[in-house]
């Protein structure tokens, strides 16, 4: 009302300006949806070229066969039949699964108390410092850390010399390097921060008055942990499990360096097929099988997570 009395001349001017703007961008200015597509196009293109295309190539390769130097492009299930019938591949797949599950369990079980400690015992002003300290191992190279474990676990390594020096053992322990145990220890250390962070975030999100309410309703500290803290931290635990499990199953550097002959995993075989045996289709088929295994296990955990997330916002 006031505007129309005092500045009636200004209003049409503004309208004209708006019209010009719309005409300059006839298509993109039309709807929010098209603007959205425009914005996501670059990352979508990136994802298509660098993720979907290689994946499709792997799947396609796995249905081809290698005949010495020539690639037979007739589609066949021969590679899969061989992978599933040859006990060597089966054993490697199974061992990869077992080692990954062991790494995941070890990592998450050690990460939980650390995350719990930071969330519940560290004063709020120091929490970010603690989180920062936990990332310190990541400042050194992944390879460096694997080699360091070799130094620690080796026959004449830090651990064995210390233990023999103290007279606790007479002979150096040999079961700690160049086998599956060493792979589990090394990978559990490497992935610890990845497990600590999601669990910490989930614990931080728990309203502390819920814990007081549980105590008030008659539950002890232990039962409060089991009935309130743990269920509410489950999304973080499941996230940690997935974050650790998915990459470990495909890891090949650690088993190669500290695993010895009995600690090798499926990724080492895939590498061998591609680079040494020049059998890319077989490697591709093994890769697809490994992916299928990861997918199956991940789905189980996602399903669990959904159950736990059911009641929450």
């Amino acid at each position: 009302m006031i505007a129309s009395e005092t500045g009636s001349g200004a209003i049409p001017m503004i309208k004209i300006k708006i019209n010009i703007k719309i005409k300059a961008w006839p298509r993109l200015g039309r709807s929010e949806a098209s603007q959205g597509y425009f914005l996501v196009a670059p990352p979508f293109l990136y994802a298509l070229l660098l993720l979907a295309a290689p994946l499709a190539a792997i799947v396609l390769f796995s249905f081809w066969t290698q005949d010495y130097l020539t690639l037979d492009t007739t589609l066949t299930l021969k590679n899969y039949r061989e992978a599933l019938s040859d006990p060597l591949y089966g054993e490697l797949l199974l061992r990869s699964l077992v080692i990954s599950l062991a790494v995941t369990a070890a990592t998450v079980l050690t990460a939980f108390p650390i995350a719990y400690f930071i969330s519940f015992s560290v004063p709020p002003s120091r929490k970010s410092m603690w989180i920062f300290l936990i990332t310190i191992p990541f400042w050194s190279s992944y390879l460096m850390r694997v080699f360091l474990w070799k130094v620690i676990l080796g026959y004449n390594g830090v651990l064995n010399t210390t233990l023999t020096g103290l007279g606790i053992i007479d002979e150096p322990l040999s079961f700690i390097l160049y086998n599956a145990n060493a792979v589990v220890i090394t990978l559990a250390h490497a992935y610890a921060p990845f497990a600590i962070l999601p669990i910490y975030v989930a614990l931080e999100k728990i309203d502390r008055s819920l814990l007081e309410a549980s105590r008030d309703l008659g539950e002890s500290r232990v039962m409060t942990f089991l009935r309130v803290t743990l269920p509410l931290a489950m999304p973080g635990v499941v996230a940690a499990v997935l974050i650790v499990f998915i990459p470990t199953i495909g890891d090949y550097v650690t088993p190669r360096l500290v695993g010895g002959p009995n600690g090798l995993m499926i990724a080492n075989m895939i590498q061998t097929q591609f680079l040494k045996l020049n059998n890319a289709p077989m490697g591709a088929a093994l890769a697809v099988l490994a992916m299928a295994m990861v997918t199956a296990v991940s789905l189980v955990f996602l399903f669990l997570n959904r159950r736990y997330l059911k009641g929450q916002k």
Partner: protein
Amino acid sequence: MKDTLGVERPIIALENVEKYYGEYYALRGISAEIRQGEFFSLLGPSGCGKTTLLRTIAGFEELSGGRLMIDGKDMKRVPANVRPTNMVFQSYAIFPHLTVAENVGFGLRREPLSRDEKARKVAEALEMVGLRGYGARAAHALSGGQRQRVALARALILEPKVLLLDEPLSALDKKMREQMQTELRRLQRQVGITFILVTHDQEEALIMSDRIAVMFEGQIAQLDTPQQLYRRPNTRQVGEFIGVMNFLPATATVSDETHIEVEAAGLGRAVIAPDQLPGGWHPGQTQSVGIRPETMSILFPGETTDRRVAIGTVEDLSYYGDMTYYVVRLDGVDRPMTISMKNLVGRPVLDRGTEARVAWDARSLVLFA
């Protein structure tokens, strides 16, 4: 709950309770007795220690000094989970991963009851708070008022000796709050459990409580019934915190125990009774009298009265429909005072600047040191 002498034993006895965090004193020597079955409120501005006191009773805070007895037992080193108290939290603290029924039945795990008995108790508790049939719902799908009811049912199902309520109505809108006030009062009478309510809303405390402890800076300033608190506050601070009170400078002389003479600015000389000095007599101090807005009235032109009359001027007014609040300056007084008048049939609303004849009674004066 009578002891051998037939004297009513308090359900909660606080003896010089202290709580400090380093240098900061949250509670500075609280002594009070809370009676079995009463609706007791802790009222005070934020930071006065009322929530700390409630959390001390619940067992979430250790005492720094003094003694806390619940039902005759010393609560020193008794953790929250074994105390005969239950709490309704300000945030309600509804478990988000459980259903309504699982929330309400949370504390029943340790009870030696069969599954069916527990389910029946939960259904009864839900019925009591007006949430019949809500058991299977997810807790996060509830409105604020419904969460409140779930929190109440969850605490009451354990039949505590004392129910502690930490500002339970502050998150609700005005209508819902008023509804819950009457409902809480009804529920308290129905179950007969002692309720202790923490609130900063003086109106809420007056409406709901049998007795109120008004707290300032970690101490109880006055512990009384709502009527007594409103009519006879024992300090100016209490009088100001509860409702509106006008203060006028005054001097007082005591002739004898029952006969106290007051000379109040703008009102003149008056004789008051000993109960009108609830804070006690402190000779030689500067004093003031307090008077509530609704105990005075402005006479319309030509109206006569047998009450005392003081003369002043209407400085301002706020018209509320049912009421008019006048700001009146009495002749010879610097500070204006508030007078509230019901807008009855035939009573005109006075204009600014007109002369006001203010009728008052010596009975409604309170003398403060």
